[in-house]
């Protein structure tokens, strides 16, 4: 099992950041590499089990199922159903924690997955840096002053 962990400080209160990221269908509005996204079968975007189907700007298609969403813990978990990345048993969690000193937010994004051993380093970089950190940096700029 490979693990990836990435975190950033977002310059906004956690409740405000959560309003944006809790929407499982809102990736295109803040993640710079996502072109478009829809929730399959007209489900609600906060319904456990719903599936988001999105296209990357490079043309790749990914389907992910929402596994958990907590408005108390400010966290959501999801699994990849289909992707061009050749990963298995991929489960990721995005969570927010308030930083009381300055009214900021700690955003953490972590994933666990299985893959071919020779692909591990490249995938860790691609997911940790190319996806999670890139998206968190975009989130930072979006709330930046």
């Amino acid at each position, binding site marked *: 099992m490979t693990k990836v*962990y*990435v*975190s*950033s*400080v977002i310059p906004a209160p956690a409740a405000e950041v959560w309003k944006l990221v809790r929407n499982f269908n809102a990736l295109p509005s803040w993640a710079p590499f996502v072109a478009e996204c829809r929730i399959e079968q007209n489900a609600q975007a906060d319904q456990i089990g719903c599936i988001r189907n999105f296209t990357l700007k490079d043309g790749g298609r990914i389907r992910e199922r929402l596994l958990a969403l907590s408005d108390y813990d400010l966290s959501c978990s999801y699994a990849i159903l289909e992707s061009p990345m050749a990963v298995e048993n991929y489960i990721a969690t995005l969570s927010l*924690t*308030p*930083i*009381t*000193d*300055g009214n*900021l937010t*700690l955003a*953490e994004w972590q994933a666990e997955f299985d893959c071919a051993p020779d692909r591990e380093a490249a995938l860790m970089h691609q997911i940790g840096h190319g996806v999670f*950190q890139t998206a*968190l*940096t975009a989130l930072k700029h979006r709330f930046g002053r």
Partner: protein
Amino acid sequence: MVKVCQSTIIDAPVDEVWAILRDFNGHDRWHPAIAFSEIEGGEPVDAVGSVRHFRLNDGGELREQLLALSDKDRRLSYCLLEAPLPLMGYVASLRLKPVTDGNATFWEWRSEFQPPAHRRDELVRLVTEGIYQAGFAAVRNLLRRRSVGSPVETRPPHAMVGPTPLASMPRAVSMAAPGQAATTRAIVVERYGGPEELQFKEIGLPPPAPNEVRIRHTVIGVNFIDVYCRTGFFDLLQPPGVPGMEAAGIIEAVGSAVSGFSIGDRVAYACPPVGAYSERRNMAPELLVHLSDDIADEIAAAGLLKGVSASFLLHDVHAVKPGDIVLIHAAAGGIGQLLVQWARHLGATVIATVSSDDKARVVERLGAHHVIVYSRENFADAVMRLTGGRGADVAYDAVGNDTFAGSLAALAVRGHLVSFGQASGPIGNWDIGRFASKSLTISRPNYGHYTDTPEKLAPHVARFFQALRQGVVRVEAPTRYTLANAADAHRDLESRRTTGALVLLPKP
């Protein structure tokens, strides 16, 4: 039940912050509200169930018990057992998380407790601001002092690494590989951090270079400087590396260009480069000392670095004269014990400070004229009382942060403060203009500058061995640990419950 939660971002790597916070007894070194702390019954500082007994600056005494500690999650929790305030049922936890895009640390500190209704707001404010927010600021300050404080404080190693050729620096520890002939077991630090970073491993040991000898260690000395190397406070050790700067042993191989040493010679050393926490090592022989038959290996390994230090502190940095009044902090520690005995022999009146009654008895037996238990009594006031308002001529202070201001206050006119360590943390920045009020002198001696050539070192070694032979100083049998248990030795040393010296024994 009220809940309090405070969190902040500290601009330092998570392991560095955790190394500070995981020491359950270390809070008196950074939290401004706390004057003194000790672990009851000599438990290790990170043992679940251990109880810290501490005193606030306002005199209040508290006891808190460690309930959980996880180095993996960088989280610990504790509860209050006794306190001067009705923080009923107080259970607190703190945890750290890395911020990966800036090498910073997220620190959350939360608690629950049940205050009496009429004091609820007051107690919530006290915990929120007086304990948590003040603690955040204090750790931030501690780290800032360490990183940008005086360059001499944080980087003495450049000066301390003596004339030893770079070839023998055990910087890059090569792990034992199959097919490699010689190996040795050693304690390896792969990254800076707590005692748990002291890992017992098999490492490669190349044949000695032409200008080196190979020593099989019999006894290895443990010193506070090894803790600074382990935490990265001093950069004498670059991970991965083997700590340790003092040992005794037997020469088992000699390089072709070496003269004056033969296989089978008994030797000891107390100098960089680091690497003593090993069964065997190669080393340039310039600073090796031959041991005569009447000096046991254990005494040499437990006493050489401390004895040489005591020699130059009492004779060179400040020449102690008969009739001088000498103040010695941490007097029950390895070097403190030597200073007390030796200063008394030189004819001085010795005032010693210690942290507990048990240590006071140790120091009294060594001949201190007056012993102050500084956890119970303001030592600067006590020195003034004992000297009829005159103060001490010289203060030897290896405690640092906790004692520096008091040491200045305890000095006589034209007194001399010799600050040679910082067991409780760096002393911070001081305005020297204030020293004019008593025409004070301050010294900050660096071990390397007094010992880095055979010419400088030899007189101190000779004087120390002579003092041992004549019974001027006695080195108590040290506390022994196996080499594999070096981490326990560090835990005990840092918890300040040890007296005298600590040594590590490699298995034969």
